[in-house]
């Protein structure tokens, strides 16, 4: 019994003792374990710190590499992912994309500015006008062709946006026998000014004679053109364009608005054959008179049907002369002098037609003759500054219908342009307009322009 109690007591105490011993042991074991793990922990901490440091260093190095990788692929160097694929760089990119905007601001003595500024890209109201914001896409399509697209946005008098496809064409780059073919829709090559985009004009508005012959938007139409570079020692090129001739953009041909100048009902005319297309031949030549002077001479004509009658047709002829002078050591292209003049004459056969104003009156068959010219002189007298002066005159012979669009007009426009760089300009122009029967109008216009992106070089 006693033995049992002792054992029991012992047994009872043992756990207690054990617990105490345990308590003592746990502490001891903890200590011991801690001691054992200390180097391991230290090593692990060390390793993780190293890893973190290395990571930070690697990131730093990568940032450094990215900073010194060239923005564009160098000729002959391998491409690196840090470089973007260039779309927008001229000369060695897939295409040039540019965006060019004109802003006009000014005042005129007439509140109806549209009546004296006929062009679609001219200032059209007192105050601010946004006549032209154009996107141009241009580039090599493949080894055989080059393509160009030109989309223009305009704000009209009520600030509504109109969008227009001005040009979209394809052109060959290396045909045999010095030929070149172009097909699509583009500003016809008649004279020097019609093919120019409005942001490249030397004056704020389009010349009166172009408005008279080609309408407010210039002459352009879907068609095709073949051109031949002549085997002469001087530059001479023969071009023949064939156009459809339909619409307001061929103002003197099958133009649904033509009643504005001939006063009669228009006739529906469809193409009966190749004789109903508009043909536009042109001869362009250039002569280097000396190292510093160049003379360009050109002649062009356009012939095609108009919609006053089943057999009526229109013929336009024009000539242009340009003279440029620039010294060899010109600083950024200045000083220079440029003189340009164009003259045109139009025979417009108007068949017998019913008058629009009074259906009982029949207007007789007649040929309307219109003519006009402009001359402009530009003097770049100081790097970035150009002074210009333009004089123009348009007239028409008498006709059965008195049209507002055929009045005699004279206009003189001096202007001054500042080009901070080739990509922006600020222009100030004064127009003195003398219109037969209406009197004199005065206008002052200021124009700003900027170009974003890369735009191909303009023709000389």
């Amino acid at each position, binding site marked *: 019994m006693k033995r049992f109690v002792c054992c029991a007591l012992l047994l009872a105490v043992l756990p207690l003792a054990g617990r105490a011993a345990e308590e003592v042991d746990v502490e001891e074991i903890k200590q011991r374990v801690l001691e054992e793990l200390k180097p391991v922990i230290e090593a692990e901490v060390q390793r993780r710190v190293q890893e973190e440091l290395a990571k930070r260093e690697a990131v730093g190095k990568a940032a450094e590499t990215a900073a010194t990788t060239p923005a564009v692929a160098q000729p002959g160097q391998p491409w690196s992912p840090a470089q973007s694929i260039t779309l927008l760089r001229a000369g060695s990119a897939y295409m040039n994309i540019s965006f060019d905007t004109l802003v006009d601001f000014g005042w005129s003595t007439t509140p109806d500015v549209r009546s004296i500024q006929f062009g679609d890209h001219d200032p059209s109201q007192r105050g601010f006008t946004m006549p032209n914001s154009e996107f141009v896409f241009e580039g090599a399509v493949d080894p055989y062709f080059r393509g160009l697209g030109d989309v223009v946005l305009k704000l009209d008098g009520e600030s509504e946006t109109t969008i227009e496809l001005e040009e979209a064409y394809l052109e060959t780059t290396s045909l045999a026998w010095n030929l070149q073919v172009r097909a699509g829709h583009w500003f016809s090559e008649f004279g020097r000014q019609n093919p120019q985009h409005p942001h490249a004009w030397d004056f704020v508005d389009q010349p009166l004679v172009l408005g008279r012959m080609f309408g407010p938007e210039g002459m352009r139409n879907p068609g095709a053109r073949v051109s*031949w570079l*002549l*085997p*002469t020692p001087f530059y*001479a090129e*023969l071009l*023949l364009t064939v156009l459809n001739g339909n619409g307001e953009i061929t103002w003197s041909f099958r133009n649904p608005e033509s009643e504005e100048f001939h006063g009669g009902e228009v006739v529906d005319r469809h193409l009966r054959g190749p004789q109903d297309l508009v*043909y536009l*031949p042109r*001869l362009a030549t250039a002569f280097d008179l000396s190292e510093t002077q160049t003379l360009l001479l050109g002649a062009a*004509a*356009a*012939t095609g049907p108009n919609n006053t009658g089943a057999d009526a*047709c229109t*013929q336009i*002829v024009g000539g242009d002369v340009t003279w440029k002078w620039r010294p060899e050591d010109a600083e950024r292209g200045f000083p220079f002098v440029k003189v340009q003049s164009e003259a045109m004459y139009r025979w417009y*056969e108007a068949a017998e037609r019913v008058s629009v104003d009074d259906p009982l009156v029949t207007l007789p068959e007649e*040929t309307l003759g219109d003519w006009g010219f402009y001359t402009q002189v530009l003097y770049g007298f100081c790097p970035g500054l150009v002074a210009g002066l333009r004089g123009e005159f348009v007239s028409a012979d008498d006709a059965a219908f008195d049209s507002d669009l055929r009045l005699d007009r004279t206009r003189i426009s001096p202007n001054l342009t500042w080009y901070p760089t080739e990509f922006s300009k600020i222009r100030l122009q004064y127009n003195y307009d003398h219109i037969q029967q209406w009197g004199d109008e005065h206008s002052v216009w200021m124009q700003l322009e900027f170009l974003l992106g890369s735009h191909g070089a303009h023709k000389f």
Partner: protein
Amino acid sequence: MIEAMDIMKWPLVACLLLPGLLVYLGLHIVEREIIFVDLALAQVAVLGNCLAILLGHDAHDWQSYGWSAGFTIVGAAIFTLTRTRDHRVPQEALIGIVYVVAAALGIVLLSRSAEGNEELRRTLVGDVLLVRPGEIWKTVALYAVIAAVHVVFRRQFLALSFGRQPPAAARGWDFLFYVLFGFVVTSFVQIGGVLLTFSYLIVPAVCAKYLADSLPGRLSVGWVTATLASVLGLCGSYRLDLPTGAAIVCALGVTLVLSGMIARGRA
């Protein structure tokens, strides 16, 4: 065949590209019934050349071309002023007189110069076999410009020759017609000689008048005739060893006979 092409290549190109405009102008000339105006204008241009040679310039200098062109314009003015509706004196007679007087003046002028005779002979006979590509392309360029003027003003020119009602300022358009015609004729005479020029102008136009009535129809017949005769003439000249210009003229004659027979057969 290959050596034939080597020698005949440029004459063939010239005979295929250039007569096109000559055929069209020939239709005008035949309609106006002034067949010998081309001979007269060519002779007047040669007179200009003779004067230039007498003044000491070389026959191929630009001064020579200038004198020649100037005389052509004067000749055109004469023909414009003499085109009257008055049928007491047919215009053909006046043209003949101009031709003869110009020829005589040329001989008189050249009697005072050493190389003139050779030049005169060359103009009359010409040799299309020796034509150079540079000459052909320059002539093609000139013809393209003149053809463009005719396309643009076809209304006025066709009214002058084919219409009953002449256009406004008829004298002016007539003068322009003769000036352009003069340039076409004198430039082809440099290549092929007067006989070949005259043949290309008149023969296809006459064939066309036999076989067709509308202008597009006549143009087609004329072009086909000229092309066929050119190819036949050049082949014949190579095979039978004949002078090229003469062979083509003979071929044109053959086509004229054929057209006449077909027309007679149809009637």
